[in-house]
């Protein structure tokens, strides 16, 4: 019986695999501030956050890469009715805290904790939030790869003193007591010394939370018309977008690897010695005679260029191509491993 299909036996011919794919994501400071004269920065009427694009955002080529916002807790020393956008900054803090830290047993929103031990210790009450777009982080940020270099010294027009924030040791040690998955503490030293953290990095959420105290000198944009004497002055005396401008001004460089979880199914398509040696290609025959044979005893042969995967009702669901024709005759057999990624 001549046949053109061969059944795939689930137990023998199908294998499932999971692969983690990592890409390096560099974000240089010149993109964040400078190169595009802030045409890649979008501020909104609501004033709750600022969006950063990798190209002027009016262009269809632009990709949204991250958002910046700031906030403080209602019991922060900066919280005052006199502060600009006071309610919005408290709301921003609470929103991020309830999503990233969760609630205590009485239903109150927990505050960000410096070392991740929510039961006690120093709380981060004044924070800068960097929300990376899914385009960059994909499924998650790869642990132990995050580095953010900030210029923490000098005047806004002449920033200096680079400080590198990294998730040291997170590839082997990280925290899991967040409702949004795994996170780690950001440190400025190559040693992950407990109690010296300057922020938190949430891997699956793709959000970095920095304590405002990482900036201990002047802060703000170079052309600022507001008080830039300290970050506290900016947080209380100007809008959220001004604080975002200040962060961008001091953004030197950033690097991390993202992770994409690739689930694959591999179908083993086995062409045995007596299979697939003839073709239904119209050029295969001349007056019904097989072109590749002169006499009956010549071996039949065919050339494989395509593998089609079919449903039970013969509908073509997936297809794979080879890079060059594969010769098939009764003297050989081939196992074509067809990988379908999800």
């Amino acid at each position: 019986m001549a046949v053109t299909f061969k059944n795939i036996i689930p137990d023998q011919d199908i294998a499932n695999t999971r692969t983690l794919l990592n890409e390096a994501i560099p974000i240089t400071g010149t993109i964040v501030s400078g190169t595009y004269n802030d045409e890649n920065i979008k501020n909104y009427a609501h004033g709750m956050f600022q969006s950063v694009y990798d190209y002027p955002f009016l262009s269809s080529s632009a990709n949204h890469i991250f958002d910046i916002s700031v906030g403080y807790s209602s019991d922060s020393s900066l919280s005052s009715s006199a502060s600009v956008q006071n309610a919005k900054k408290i709301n921003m803090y609470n929103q991020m805290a309830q999503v990233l830290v969760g609630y205590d047993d009485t239903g109150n929103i927990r505050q960000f904790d410096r070392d991740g031990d929510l039961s006690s210790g120093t709380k981060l009450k004044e924070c800068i939030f960097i929300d990376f777009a899914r385009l960059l982080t994909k499924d998650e940020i790869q642990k132990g790869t995050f580095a953010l270099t900030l210029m923490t010294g000098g005047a806004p027009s002449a920033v200096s003193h680079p400080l590198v924030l990294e998730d040291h040791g997170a590839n082997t040690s990280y925290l899991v007591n967040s409702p949004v998955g795994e996170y780690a503490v950001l440190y400025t030293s190559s040693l992950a010394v407990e109690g010296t953290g300057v922020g938190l990095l949430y891997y699956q959420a793709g959000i970095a939370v920095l304590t405002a105290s990482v900036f201990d000198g002047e802060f703000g944009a170079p052309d600022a018309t507001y008080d830039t004497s300290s970050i506290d002055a900016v947080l209380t005396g100007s809008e959220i977008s001004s604080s975002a401008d200040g962060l961008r001004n001091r953004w030197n460089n950033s690097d991390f690897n993202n992770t994409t979880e690739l689930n694959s199914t591999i179908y083993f398509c086995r062409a045995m010695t007596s299979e697939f040696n003839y073709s239904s290609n119209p050029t295969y025959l001349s007056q019904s005679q097989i072109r590749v044979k002169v006499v009956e005893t010549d071996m039949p042969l065919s050339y494989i260029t395509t593998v089609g995967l079919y449903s039970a009702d013969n509908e073509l669901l997936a297809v794979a191509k080879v890079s060059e024709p594969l010769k098939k005759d009764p003297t050989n057999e081939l196992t074509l491993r067809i990988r379908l990624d999800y």
Partner: protein
Amino acid sequence: MAFLDNSGDIILDAVLTDAGRERLARGDGSFKITKFSLGDDEINYTLYNTSAATGQKDLQIMQTPILEAFTNNTSLMKSKLISIPRTNLLYLPVILLNQSLGVAKDTTTDSILITVDETTTDNITTGQYLNGYETTSGQILRVDQGLNNNAVAATIDLDTDLVETQYMVEIDNRLGQLATSDGTPSPVSFVDDDSIASYYFSMGTGRNGVTPTPANGYVFENTVTGDGPDQVIAGPRGTYLQFKIKASQNLNSSTYLFTLLGNEFSFLGNTYYYIDTSVRITGATTGYRIDVPLRFIKQQ
């Protein structure tokens, strides 16, 4: 010690076809891969030089560049490789349009004409056309299968493993649907995302599962063993497939698709709208496939 030859184990990345994506999105379990087939669409076997030295015979074929995969499910796997345990076959059967016992192609348009409404059917003066308006009358479309050469006499039976007992027929569902010789519409197996309807016809199965007769069946054994003007297969014959094509209601009542997909032409003193398409007939056993050109016409 030499390295092992691992050329027999090849990893290829597959892409989903549009039909595959559609089934995956449906989420009802209809996306299930159960079988595979191998194709050789790009290969031109006329480049195989049987008189060349060993190792040189397929030099040009092996240099054939391979196209990336299309995602349109009907654009791929047009010619499949066949598994036949025997290696001593010198001839394989083909499928040919029988223009003597079925409708013949119009010589000026090189396609089979199909009328779509009553006016066109009443006024057309050529004898060779399919009545797509009223399928209870008119001619049939017939294809024959077998070895088309004189090397083996037609009196000899075609090997049973080469006889097509099932055919798949594909046609644009927006333009027409298939029917039996007595004009009864045929059940569609499925219509894909590109509106291509697939029909499966098996020997021994007539309409509604009744024992087939020429009026209500599709696939029949070709028992004619002698030469004759009506036979298009010169050698041993297998089966033949016959059906009619009923024009869609859209073509019958509107010119929308004609202006969208077709054009106008003058034919036998009248001006017609027309749409050129084809009906694709594939043998389920040998995978041999022919595209029969069709022209749906509507008088202006």
